[in-house]
């Protein structure tokens, strides 16, 4: 093993190199946070904090209301998650327990691979293919059926909250399904058999035993998917219509914080640029808040079933 004459790192040196690398990573993370906070600070020092909840975005008149974008971000994410949770869970159950064994793994792999398709591709597809279909078919149909709810007021334009939410849903679905399928599939077979032997129907086995048994992992999948939806930029920016007004209907064009930043970044200077940095900070805070709630949920359910697997 020893080759004389060759440079050899002593043990302490080896540890030191690793420690330096670790320290650089930590420094990078701190730098990231400080850089954004420092650059966003002028927005708060000149405008205060009330602009975050302002309703009007009109930079040429010094109005930087962020509320339309905060709401847009949350609404688009909500549409995506409301679609992705039941459909993702049903798909994962089908992939883990219903699909014939022979094609199970190839189908699952296909879904996992689709998680790697770049989001800009989904955006392009949404803008070119789905937008006309939504404008001419889907939105008029939904309006005629669900118009009474008031959710579908206004003209059908294709681009808008609904389309952006649907594109996001398609985009986060593979992630959601891949993780959910994994955690559902590892629920011990003895649990499944235990329920079966008591006279449970197939659905009762899945719904009363398998899904509760996997709930911690399912929450994790849900969190990750929600996080991806919240932070997605280009796929949303291409199909949401980019309107700086609070949406009055699910069909309305709107904007999200990421789409606001990416659309205005090139032309902004001074206070407006600082406001965009601050908007990024607000997005980070929303992301952390959602993540914390999910972590707390995971922690509180995991805590009550800790060590639950039978030996």
């Amino acid at each position: 093993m020893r080759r004389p004459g060759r440079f050899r790192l002593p043990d302490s040196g080896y540890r030191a190199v690793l420690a330096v690398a670790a320290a650089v990573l930590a420094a990078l993370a701190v730098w990231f946070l400080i850089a954004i906070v420092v650059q966003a600070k002028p927005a708060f020092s000149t405008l205060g904090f009330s602009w975050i909840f302002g309703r009007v975005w009109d930079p040429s008149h010094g109005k930087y209301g962020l509320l339309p974008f905060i709401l847009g971000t949350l609404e688009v994410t909500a549409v995506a998650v409301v679609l992705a949770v039941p459909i993702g869970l049903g798909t994962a159950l089908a992939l883990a327990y219903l699909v014939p064994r022979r094609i199970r793994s190839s189908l699952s792999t296909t879904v996992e691979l689709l998680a790697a398709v770049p989001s800009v591709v989904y955006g392009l597809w949404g803008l070119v293919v789905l937008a006309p279909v939504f404008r001419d078919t889907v939105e008029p149909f939904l309006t005629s059926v669900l118009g009474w709810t008031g959710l579908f007021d206004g003209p059908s334009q294709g681009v808008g909250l609904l389309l952006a939410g649907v594109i996001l849903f398609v985009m986060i679905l593979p992630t959601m399904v891949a993780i959910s399928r994994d955690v559902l599939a590892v629920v011990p077979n003895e649990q499944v058999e235990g329920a079966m032997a008591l006279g449970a129907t197939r659905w009762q086995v899945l719904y009363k035993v398998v899904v509760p048994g996997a709930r911690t992992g399912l929450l994790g999948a849900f969190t990750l998917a929600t996080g991806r939806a919240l932070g997605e930029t280009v796929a949303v920016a291409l199909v949401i219509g980019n309107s700086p007004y609070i949406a009055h209907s699910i069909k309305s064009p709107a904007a999200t914080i990421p789409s606001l930043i990416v659309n205005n970044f090139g032309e902004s200077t001074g206070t407006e640029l600082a406001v965009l940095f601050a908007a990024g900070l607000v997005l980070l805070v929303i992301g952390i808040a959602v993540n914390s709630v999910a972590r707390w949920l995971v922690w509180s359910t995991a805590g009550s079933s800790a060590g639950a697997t039978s030996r």
Partner: protein
Amino acid sequence: MTTLLDLPGDPTLERRRAVQEAAASSLRRRKLGSAVALGVCWVFLGIAIVPLVGVVAYVVAKGLPAWSVDFFTKSTVPEGIPGGGVWNAIVGTAVITTVAIVVTVPFGLLVGLFLAESDGRVAASLRFTADVMTGVPSITVGIFGYIAIVRNFGNSGFAGAFAIGFIMLPVIVRAGETAFRGVPTSLNEAALALGARKVTIARKVVVPTALPGVITGVLLAVARGLGETAPLLLTIGGNQYLQWNPTKQMEALPTFIYSSSSQPYADQVQLAWGAALLLMVVVLVLSIGSRLFAARLRKERR
């Protein structure tokens, strides 16, 4: 021997009768409910697969006609003028990604090795940091790249590589840690018992044994970095001419797709589909390749 089964009025027997009656009378409802619910799962599977397959099929159908010699060899022409290719964007993506890999992979693996060898508070908080970094919205990474690099040096391929590297880094760190941790302690201890020093162990035992996991993780990180668009929009500036020098403004495939897709010119949109197909193929090849590679190495080990 008489069993209680024969005695009337026995509470066990009465309960048995009640249970069996209830089970029989609810059977239709339960079976129907089960069939409906399982049917819904199948329908959801269909709903999930149709758009996903639809996206891929559509990109292939629209993108393949765009692929020509010009597409791969010529640079973008000004909007509205027909012709041109995406060679400049291909070169940009290649250069930016290469720079990001060269810096991030060794660095990320060192951190991964550190985490694999450490327990305790420092390691735990670093692990937490890496996890948080994974979840940071990519647009804010773009902002960071802008503040850290562009503000001082202007738009450049390096600024893009910095942002993409920031996104790839935590993925590599965590994949590296998982792979290094998978190295059996016994191997480690056996080497130590033979008098090997830690750095030798790392080089001769830990790294080779962990290689499949490391390569899989790196390829997945690269696949992720390749498709990132938002950070590049804020950092590389765009360039319709061929540019190999990462200190200058560059074009990249995802940003090209983004800016072309809302153009009114059919030729430009056509190029965007071609670029989308190219990007998708590269990303999928990397993802599939990483799986196959990992599976093969695992097999050889056995």
